[in-house]
């Protein structure tokens, strides 16, 4: 499948895609060249093992960057990891990186953090690149105007061995969002709104370009949140054309020198969809229609506005009713119930969706001078070491601790609960992460996805509430 003939103009996606095609296989996929490959401890060990068995070297080690994030503890990181299997995975990553000459920002390293937080923060992620990682939320990097997507371990092995992947060109969808957001509505609300509207498979087979003045007015952090969760609609990835906000963000980053920045700038400026480019599907959204969102079910598409009620069973598509009932039973909620006022037990502010410095600032601004509700356990897990440090410098750490929040060390933590940060059975957790699947945060844990602002408000009042009333 090749790009469709288009005399009128090219999409941003196609500009990048075409420049990375090594060759096309007849009646088959294309060979796509990969610029950056991020790896972590959980989805890489089998790839390295398999390469070693076949005696295949790593082809371009300097295009591979590694971090330990998925299973690491978020307390006492200076001590040996207690869980033996996690310790083994981290150890294996360290050995593999040493053997193959791959740069590792492991536990304790000043640049350590969640893979999708550190890539951009260190300037490794740059506009126009193809970027992959054995983690579905690799789409995050699309916020810089990249083709970034998650891959499986066999594909990790292919990229390690050849720096290439076999890919079919996806269809392209443009979601255009214009207008002013209501106060208290964050980019997390935009994406939760879109997923609720399009459903969890509404964009399967597509790559999404987000455009419009609402998107233009967002910070890089906020754009990353949107691209991060674009895959929860089934999309292969999401991307946003780079602009002045992007270029400014990339100044003074650790692995992007000033000379390189200046050299690349004119090229980056060509990265946009031509005005006459056509898309396989287009959706327009009015930003003013979006209110703070909250999920009630067990997939990210089961969300409503904070003041709305859980839909009635009769309003759900017949074929989905059984799963719907099951989801509500799992969550201990009823059809027609208001989410507002629901008593909650945990608040988790973290993950590659919402654990950047801007997210921590939003939370700190909001809770300054307030105290968390007594019955709530509130964890804040910064996305990276650098975020954690900056938070301390800005006094955010003190504000959080004074309010009774536990400020942890960076890692994926309760986003997928591979380490000890698990939500107990039956408990409600308002979480800024990206997935509310059954058991995702612990066996029978009940996850409610929301923005950092809504999560912070829930921590203060002890129940789901509209943060705007406390602003």
């Amino acid at each position, binding site marked *: 499948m090749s790009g469709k003939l288009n005399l009128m103009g090219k999409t941003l996606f196609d500009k990048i895609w075409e420049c990375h095609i090594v060759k096309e296989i007849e009646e088959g996929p294309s060979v796509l060249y990969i610029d950056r490959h991020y790896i972590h401890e959980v989805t890489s060990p089998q790839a390295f093992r398999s390469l070693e068995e076949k005696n295949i070297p790593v082809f371009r080690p300097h295009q591979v960057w590694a971090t330990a994030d998925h299973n690491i503890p978020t307390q006492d990181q200076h001590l040996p990891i207690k869980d033996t299997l996690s310790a083994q995975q981290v150890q294996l990553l360290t050995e593999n990186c040493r053997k193959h000459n791959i740069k590792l920002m492991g536990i304790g390293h000043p640049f350590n953090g969640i893979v999708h937080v550190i890539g951009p923060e260190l300037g490794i992620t740059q506009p126009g690149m193809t970027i992959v990682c054995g983690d579905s939320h690799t789409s995050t990097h699309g916020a810089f105007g990249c083709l970034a997507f998650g891959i499986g371990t066999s594909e990790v092995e292919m990229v390690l061995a*050849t720096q290439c992947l076999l890919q079919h060109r996806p269809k392209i969808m443009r979601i255009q969002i214009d207008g002013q957001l209501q106060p208290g509505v964050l980019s997390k609300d935009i994406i939760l709104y879109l997923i609720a509207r399009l459903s*969890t498979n509404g964009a399967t087979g597509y790559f999404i370009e987000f455009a419009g003045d609402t998107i233009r007015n967002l910070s890089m952090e906020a754009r990353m949140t949107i691209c991060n969760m674009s895959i929860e609609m089934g999309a292969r990835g999401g991307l946003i054309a780079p602009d002045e906000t992007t270029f400014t963000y990339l100044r003074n980053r650790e692995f992007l020198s000033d000379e390189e920045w200046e050299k690349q700038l004119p090229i980056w400026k060509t990265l946009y969809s031509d005005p006459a480019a056509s898309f396989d599907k287009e959706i327009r959204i009015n930003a003013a229609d979006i209110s703070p969102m909250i999920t009630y079910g067990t997939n990210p598409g089961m969300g409503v506005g904070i003041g709305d009620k859980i839909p009635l069973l009769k309003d759900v598509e017949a074929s989905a009713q059984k799963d719907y009932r099951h989801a509500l039973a799992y969550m201990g909620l009823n059809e027609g119930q208001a989410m507002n006022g629901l008593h909650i037990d945990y608040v988790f502010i973290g993950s590659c969706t919402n654990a950047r410095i801007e997210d921590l600032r939003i939370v700190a601004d909001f809770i300054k001078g307030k105290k968390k509700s007594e019955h709530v356990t509130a964890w804040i897990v910064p996305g990276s070491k650098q975020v954690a440090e900056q938070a301390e410098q800005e006094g955010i750490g003190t504000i959080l601790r004074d309010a009774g929040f536990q400020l942890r060390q960076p890692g994926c933590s309760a986003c997928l609960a591979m380490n000890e940060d698990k939500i107990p059975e039956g408990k409600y957790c308002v979480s800024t992460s990206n997935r509310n699947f059954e058991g995702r945060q612990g066996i029978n844990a009940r996850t409610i996805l929301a923005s950092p602002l809504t999560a912070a408000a829930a921590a203060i009042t002890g129940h789901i509430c509209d943060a705007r009333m406390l602003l």
Partner: protein
Amino acid sequence: MTSKKLTNIISTAVPLPAENIDTDQIIPARFLKATHREGFGNHLFYDWRYNNKGALNPDCILNQPAWSGRILIAGKNFGCGSSREHAAWAIKDYGFDVIICSFFADIFRNNALNNFLLPLQVSEEVVQQLLQTVTAYPSLILEIDMAQTLLSVRELNLHLPFPMNSYKKSCFLNGHDDLAYLLSIKEEIKNFERNRPVYK
């Protein structure tokens, strides 16, 4: 992974009608700590197959001896969520070679293909028909002819071609994987690196 070719499959099937079965259900994250590819089948659908005390859950269809086989039939959007290939390994390791569904999540489909686990896509109508029939008649035999990319169920008089590009088909028939192909064009890749095109 040793590549295993897949040609013809004649087998009974297991119906799993739920939609949006995500990879966290297929294999929960707490089982992802192994560093091998083998053995994940033991943890397939763990929280469905076992209750929280570790005892078999008799309600789960995978624990009911009436249904077995190399084919899994599932509700739409199978394999959504995390990119973990462990999901495909677990399904294959458990003994399935084919999943029939009207709609696969993208990354999961690739992971399945890379492990010679066939993601066989048919219309939602056909999936529903198969789910109902197999639920009522567990001994129903399904036949898959890879060379013809054809799914047949004689009792239902069903002979249905399914989509698969010729490159992947030949991979399945010959047991070749993408890695072998990519390694074979390494010179072309190096050449590409030397003459990187610019954006137009």
